[in-house]
């Protein structure tokens, strides 16, 4: 029996020959490698004195929140299940890994990633470590929750409770309304 996919993230990819910029669904987009992501995460992690990891999480949240919210508006996506599925699909489309929300509620949520560009890229570059490093993913799941419920960016605190980079079989995230 075949299973119909109810929701699919529609990619409208354009290349502007004049500016030589790529855009996806109206937002300028660019390819970068795992070395770049790993070094951004390392810089954020090292910058403890001014909470660099939070800055990287927040910068990710701000960026992705705009993309997700804009998509829901333009495609008139109102249904909760569809919104959740689309946030999972978009993350995969970007190449950041697989994301699955285990449960979603307005005050709390949990999600996991069986694969993660940031974690697997970090391991590829430097090997494992005992602390989470996926600040980009943390920001994304917070952005996803805010966009799903139509709340402002920054509406959820996120905690990474297990990490692939630390040897877990999946990275797990817990979210609580701030």
């Amino acid at each position, binding site marked *: 029996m075949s299973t119909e996919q109810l929701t699919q993230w529609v990619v409208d990819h354009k290349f502007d020959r004049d500016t030589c910029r790529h855009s996806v669904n109206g937002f300028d987009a660019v390819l*970068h490698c795992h070395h770049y992501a790993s070094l951004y995460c390392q810089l954020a992690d090292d910058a403890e004195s001014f909470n660099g990891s939070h800055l990287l999480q927040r910068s990710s949240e701000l960026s992705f929140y705009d993309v997700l919210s804009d998509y829901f508006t333009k495609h008139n996506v109102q249904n909760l299940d569809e919104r959740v599925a689309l946030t999972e699909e978009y993350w995969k489309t970007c190449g950041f890994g697989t994301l699955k929300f285990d449960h979603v509620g307005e005050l709390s949520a949990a999600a996991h990633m069986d694969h993660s560009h940031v974690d697997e890229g970090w391991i590829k570059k430097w090997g494992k470590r005992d602390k989470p490093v996926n600040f980009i993913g943390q920001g994304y799941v917070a952005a996803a929750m805010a966009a799903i419920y139509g709340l402002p960016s920054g509406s959820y605190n996120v905690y990474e409770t297990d990490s692939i980079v630390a040897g877990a079989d999946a990275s797990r995230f817990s979210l609580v309304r701030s």
Partner: protein
Amino acid sequence: MSVDRNVVIDAMSQVKSESNDEGLIPAFNVLVTQAPTSRWNNFADLITNSVDPELKPAAEALLENAAHECGYHTGYGIITSEEFDAICNPMIQNPPEDVLHAAFAVFTAWGWAKSEVVELIPGEKMVVRAYDYYESDVVQRGTLNGPCAYMIQGVSAAFMDLAYGGEYDPSGQTGMRTFKCEQVKGIECGDEYGEFVVTLAG
């Protein structure tokens, strides 16, 4: 220079990146993502404006270093790729100089910066101009006191490493950081274009 930039840009801009079942995009010997440019700009902007002023040069150097390593490894993946072989290599008559020209055409095609090499002294110096680049988007009105195209700086130096720094070293222990880059003009500073001067690290 025998490389036809327009041919390279038209062809390489059409190369698609699609994720596999694991949500990953293995390409050019690395894992890549295709994210909004703001994803990278936001962090650079937040971190350079959050540090104490005396630490800002260190933060900027680390941002540039991230791009330098990215440019070195991904750059090598690009110039040894099937796509580069099919599209660029037939035009290359004078390596590694022509490879550099082609690499900046690819750099342009992939939306990193609309850029070209405007001066090249083999093994010594390269000047790159960028006429449009996403890193300048952090300024929407007014101008910055100093430039902020850390990614172009790092990648430009890395491309010179690949051209003249010796054999590619996957570990990055040798060959990388034989060149350094200084951004002397920036759209974000009110200039018509960004200009990047790459010289031997010394």
